[in-house]
């Protein structure tokens, strides 16, 4: 049951990424196609999650589903 429950830390990380990086730092979301840069952002977030100091296997496992 808990497997499908989003974890607070990951939601916080994504929310922070979308708010700070996407909206405020030039990575604007194209309202006509929000998925336009999905692959790029996916890679950035994956890299953020996997940097050694932040490595958290729960987060990594959850992000990849």
């Amino acid at each position, binding site marked *: 049951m808990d497997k499908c429950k*989003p974890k607070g830390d990951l939601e916080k990380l994504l929310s922070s990424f979308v708010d700070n990086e996407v909206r405020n730092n030039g990575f604007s979301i194209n309202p006509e196609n929000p998925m336009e840069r999905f692959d790029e952002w996916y890679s950035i977030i994956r890299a953020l999650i996997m940097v050694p100091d932040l490595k958290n296997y729960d987060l990594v496992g959850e992000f990849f589903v």
Partner: protein
Amino acid sequence: MILLVNSLYEDKFRNTSFQDRAVFLPHCLGIDIARNKKSKSQVDSVKEFAVSKGYDPDKIFVVGGGSEIPSLMDGCSAMLGLCCITDAKAYVDAYKAGEIDGCRLPGAVQMCLLDRKGCKDTFVNLDYVFERLSLVPRFVENSVVK
């Protein structure tokens, strides 16, 4: 992956009225276990909650699989789907491509992942589903009713 999609579409989903959103529920959601325990299935719980919020009952669909969705989503501005990882990946790819099976996708999507695939005895985190169903425009959420 799913949380990133939900984040990217959250504003558009928030700005779509409850009546214009479609909800897609899998037939397998907690039904077998509910039958054995003679309790309400999660499908019924989600339906009841959505209707109580103002969702159109005619736009709440129980489907046998993701392939049934394209024929039903015509005219919907946004959709919320409860799905297994297989269907979720198919819809992430479809949203990247802009269409599925030649059909244009609704303008916004939110997905809630089932705990397993296999179309039997699946469960979803209802708190997360109710939170996504309840999303309203930020200015409404931030306004204080006195």
